[in-house]
Every structure is written in C-alpha cells, then in structure tokens.
C-alpha cells in the first residue's frame, strides 16, 4: 500500500515515510504500512475526509513477517503512539522498556522508526533466549554464531502446527562481502530490501532436516548471472551453523574473485584474437569483453565466427558459432551452427586459445560450408 493510500493525518505522514523508506538496520528492509483506520468517528480537520491515525506495519524478520499495530491519536500530536503486538506471540515488552516511546520527540521524524527498532531489538533477544533452551547442541552452535564476525543475525522459533509441537527455527544471517572489484556499471540500482547476501537456515527439529536458502541483492544477483546462478553449498549433517555460514561466505567470495579475474582473462582472450586475426574483426565488446565477431573466407566462401565468453570464463568454455554470409535456415533465421566441443583448457593463455580456435575453425569449416549448401536457403 502506498503512503498516499493510507490517508494519514498530515503530521503522522513523516514518521511513517521515514519508517518505510529509510534503512531500518534489519536484515531485510521494506517495512510495509497497511490497514489504515481512524480512531475517531469524525474528523476535526476540514478538507481532510476520512483521515486515519491507526495502521499496521509488517516487518520482515528471520524469514517471517511480524505485524504490529501503531495507534496514534489524531487529535493529540504531542502524544506518542501505542504499539500493539499480536497475541500469539508470547512477547509483551513493558512500555517503559521502549525508550523511544518513553522519550517521544514529536519533532524527530525518526522517532517511530527508533521505537520499532527498539521493539525489534527486544524481539530478537526474546527469540534468541527461546531458541537457546531448545537443545544443548543447537544452543551451543547458536552461541558460537552470535560470537562470530556476523553481527546481523535474526533467529525466530516458529510453531509449525497448531498444537505447537513441531518446532522450526529460522536463522537469518547477513553476510557482508566486498563487491567493489566487480564492474557494475550496467547492473540494476541498489536493492532497497536486501543490502547484502542473506543466508536463511531453516531447522526442522522434528524432521531433523536443515534447509539453507540464499537471498542476494538485485545487483549482486545480476552480476552473478541471475537468480539461481549461485546455489548454497550442501549442508552436511553435523556441520555447525558457523562453519556452514563460513562456507557460504567463502563461496560468495570465490565467485566474486572468479568474476573479477574473469574480466581480465576475457580482455586477454579478445586481445589475442585481435592480434592473431588482424583485419578480420567485425565487432567486439570493448567494455566487458563478452563477445567478439570475426569475418573470414574459405575458398571464396565468406563466413562469420561469433565467440561468446561467459562471466565465468575461463572456467566456462567459450561458445563458437559459425555463420554463413549468404544463407538462412528453414526458419528464415541466419544459418548458424554453434559448438563448445573443441579442445580447450582454462589454463591456456589467450594466444594459445586463439591458436587452438583457429585450428578448430579450419577443421570444421568444410563441413559447415557443406551444411549451408545442402540445408540453407539464399
């Protein structure tokens, strides 16, 4: 729901705006305000029909959503709001413990955000204590995790069924990684919800099952090659949370390193091709070096070679596509044949790769020409 849709009293709007737009310090941003209602049947303010002063906020926490109701008094700007927590949560902090509410400063637009942060801090601690008494080993691993370098951790004990017997604990860990070495000029704008990679470990005690999930900010997801491009490592039985989180971080850092080095390797590869095939270049990606196209002739038959390099080159072998300068296929598309099946080693330097590619082209051009003549149309 957009802020305007809440139709709040004008003096309440800045608090809510700061809450939903600003950084919250939680693992996941994106606090939502919804379900607006009015505490008074008639509004004393002219030209403001149906203004509201009560609404709910939905706050992402450890893979779940915590909802609380914020109750302002539309007629009293000086008063701090009441905050109601859901009954099913056995979490009921004392009002006096929420310092931002006790020392409510109506001139500070961040006051509501600070109050929510205070409550969430206590909520976090509440769940940490609950989870700490579940199981001795679990408690020990959790303590080890809390004592580690990972400072932003959210733990939530869920009751998976109505009887409250089955217990699932979500552990959400923010993993900070340095991506400054990556070229992100084409990447999407910063994600407003997720700022760093998040590892969510879902523990089902009764089923004795652990499921790790990885959430990436949009920018990092784009740089890695899209959703699902990086999967969490296998969670082997007996591995501690900290050890697993470290493995995940290592995998993220290795991927970043691979991507960073890949740019230089791709540039070396393209340079080697331009050097070996001087004068045959049609076009090459001069920024990210993801592709190069060349033109040749073989016994009067002109053809093109398109080479595509993935972001994980040289780990991933480049794809080579032959294209006829004359023919279309049956679908009226350019007549092309692609191949990744040629001698290749990621350890070869650029010039060696260029030389081997030339040999491959010479090996296959006869057969390709034959295919064009037999199957292509002009």
């Amino acid at each position, binding site marked *: 729901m957009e802020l305007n849709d809440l139709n709040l009293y004008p003096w309440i709007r800045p608090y809510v705006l700061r809450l939903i737009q600003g950084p919250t310090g939680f693992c996941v941003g994106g606090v939502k305000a919804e379900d607006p209602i009015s505490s008074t049947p008639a509004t004393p303010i002219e030209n403001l029909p149906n203004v509201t002063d009560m609404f709910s906020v939905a706050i992402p926490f450890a893979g779940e959503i915590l909802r609380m109701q914020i109750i302002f008094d539309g007629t009293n700007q000086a008063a701090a709001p009441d905050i109601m927590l859901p009954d099913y949560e056995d979490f009921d902090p004392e009002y006096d413990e929420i310092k931002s509410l006790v020392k409510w400063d109506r001139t500070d637009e961040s006051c509501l955000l600070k109050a929510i942060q205070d409550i969430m801090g206590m909520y976090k601690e509440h769940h940490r204590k609950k989870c700490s008494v579940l199981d001795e080993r679990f408690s020990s691993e959790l303590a080890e995790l809390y004592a580690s370098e990972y400072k932003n951790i959210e733990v939530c004990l869920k009751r998976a069924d109505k009887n409250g017997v089955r217990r699932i604990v979500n552990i959400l860990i923010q993993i900070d990684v340095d991506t400054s070495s990556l070229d992100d000029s084409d990447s999407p704008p910063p994600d407003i919800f997720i700022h760093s990679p998040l590892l969510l470990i879902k523990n089902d005690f009764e089923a004795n099952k652990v499921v790790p999930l990885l959430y990436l900010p949009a920018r990092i997801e784009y740089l890695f090659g899209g959703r699902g491009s990086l999967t969490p490592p296998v969670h082997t039985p007996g591995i501690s949370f900290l050890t697993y989180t470290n493995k995940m971080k290592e995998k993220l850092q290795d991927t970043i390193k691979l991507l960073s080095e890949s740019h230089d390797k791709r540039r070396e590869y393209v340079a080697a091709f331009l050097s070996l095939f001087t004068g045959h270049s049609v076009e090459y990606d*001069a920024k990210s070096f993801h592709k190069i196209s060349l033109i040749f002739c073989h016994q009067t038959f002109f053809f093109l070679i398109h080479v595509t390099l993935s972001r994980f080159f040289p780990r991933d072998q480049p794809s080579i596509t032959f294209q006829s300068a004359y023919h279309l296929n049956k679908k009226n598309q350019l007549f092309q044949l692609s191949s990744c099946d040629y001698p290749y080693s990621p350890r070869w330097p650029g010039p060696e790769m260029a030389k081997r590619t*030339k040999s491959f082209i010479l090996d296959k051009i006869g057969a390709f020409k034959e295919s064009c003549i037999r199957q292509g149309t002009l």
Partner: protein
Amino acid sequence: MASNDNSADSTMSPPPYSADSSRHRRSPQEHDEVLEQDKGTTEPQTTVQNTKNLPQNKESPSQITVVDSNVEGHRSPSPRPEPKPRVVLKRLSSSSQDNIPIPKVNCPEKIILCVDHSSSMFLKHFRKTAQTIKQTSPIQVLNGAIRQFVMTKSLIDKRHEYSLFMLNDNAQLISDFSNQANDIMFMMQDITNTTKPKENQDTEGQSSVDISQLFDQIENHVTLPVVKNPSQTPPPYVVRLIFIYGRSQCKIEFLNGRESYQKLVKSPYFFMDSIYIHEEPSEDNKVTDVFTGLCELDANGNSYILEVGLDSSMSVLYNALAKLLAHPLQRQRQPVNFNYDILSLE
C-alpha cells in the same frame, strides 16, 4: 578464390596510403558453384599476367587495371571456356588526414542505407550461370544481402539502428531509424517486389545525379554526437551511411553545394561506405568516373569503397555487405590487398 596479391603493379610507386578493394575474380560460374554444390575437385589456381595500366594524366584516387586470368593447371574433366580478360577497379590512394583518435568502442551505430532506385538496379542483371535458374537483378540480390547485413548486425548488438533512403532523381527517406531489423527488411522486400521502374523513366539517361540533396536530407535526419575530449570519451553512437549505387552511365555530382556533406564529414562520428554495382568499365560508360567520384567522397580516409561488377557472381554483392559489417570504430582502414582467406593466416 585465389589471392590477388600478385596483381600489385610494379610500375607504380605506392602512394602514402592506398587501399585495394578489388578482387581477382573467378568466373561467375565458379563462384556460384562454391555456393551451390561441392565439386570435389581441386580449385583451379589462377595467376595474373600482363597487368597493364591505362594512361592517367593526373593522380586519381582510383585506377583501372586490366587483369588477365590464366586457368593453367586446371584438371577438371570437362574443359571450361577461357574466361575473357576482365577489368578490375582498384582504389590506390586515399586521404591521409590525421584524424582525432577515437576510443575503439562498440557503441551503437545509426546506419543509413541509401539504395539506388534507378532502372539499372532493376533492369540489369548479374551474369547468368549454369547454376542460376534465372538472371537476378541487383535489387533482388541486394535485398538478400541487406537482409543478411541487418540480421547479423542486430544479432551482434541490438542497439544498432537502421534507416532506409532511396535514391532516384532525389533521395527519399523510406524508413526512419529503428533497431527492428524486420522494419528495414520488410521495406526492402516491398520495394524489390512491387516497384518496377518504367522504361521512359530510365535514370541512366541522365549524365549525373545530384547527391547534394542526399546529404542535405541526412544532415537534417541525424544529430551527430558532440563529445568533450573525444580522444578519451567514447561517443554515445556513430552514424554510418552505406551508399549503394548502381548506375554505370550517371556520375555523382554536387550540383547544389557541399555544405551539408562538409558538415557531416567534419564530425569524427560520421562514416560513409560505398558499394558500387557496375557494368564492365569501358569507354562507353562512366564507371571509372563514378568510382573516382565515390573515392573522392572519402574525405577522412576511413571509408570502405567496394565495387561489384555485374559480370561477377551475385555472391560478390553478399561479400561486400559482409565486409561492411565491421564496426567503423573498431575496423582498420580499408587495407591494400587484404586477404580475408583464413588459410592465409597459416
């Protein structure tokens, strides 16, 4: 196709810069055989003998060279007729102007295809061979070659844009810039299939065509980028005119001033390439003059000027468009005797 490196003329001292767009061609029959079937025999080697130069009274950016082809050594069981000597247009010099070095980036291109819409493009034909069922006109072959060109450019970079002009007495904008290759292909197909120039509108009857208006239109049609520090900062795009001309009797001239042309060529981000489809050069036509005129349009020395004889195979026109696929900021200057054959890299 054999390399034409042997055709270099030993009687002339090489100019500071020269570019060779010529190819010593096989017969059209042999060309089409390469495309249509696998002969399974060794390709006959051709050698060049008795290269002669026609006398020239002044330096010219182009020159006619008569090239004999010798099919000695051919072992085909069915003897082929001796091909008659053919004339090859060679571009031997170009402006050696020092241009501002521009970063070699693959920025988007705005490509203007200007296609000659004269009767020559419809009524003349490429030489018929044993393999071709019917004689094909330049416009028909060009339709296929342009299709290959725009589809390939779009595949390489979807940001490239294409615009189509037709040249009759005047230039006419047919299709505005679009990155949809289908738009241009559709227009070209439509023009190829539906337009039939009337005999009494034979534009070859004119002695010259005024290209001032073409450049006036282009100057109004495009906005050339202006970049601070052009040697360091890549341009947001470049503009390239590909001028495809098919008249052998009609010279190209600036009859209404060169202001627009000069404004365009002053920009380091404007490029002009030409493809000239022509009859065999002779004293009865103006092929040499036209070719010279096209070479003279290369003010900055960064144009590709290619010629396609009607006595050659239609594949040569495809080859010409293929050579023009190269991005103008990343390609080398049109080289002398450049051999595209991959075997020459051995």
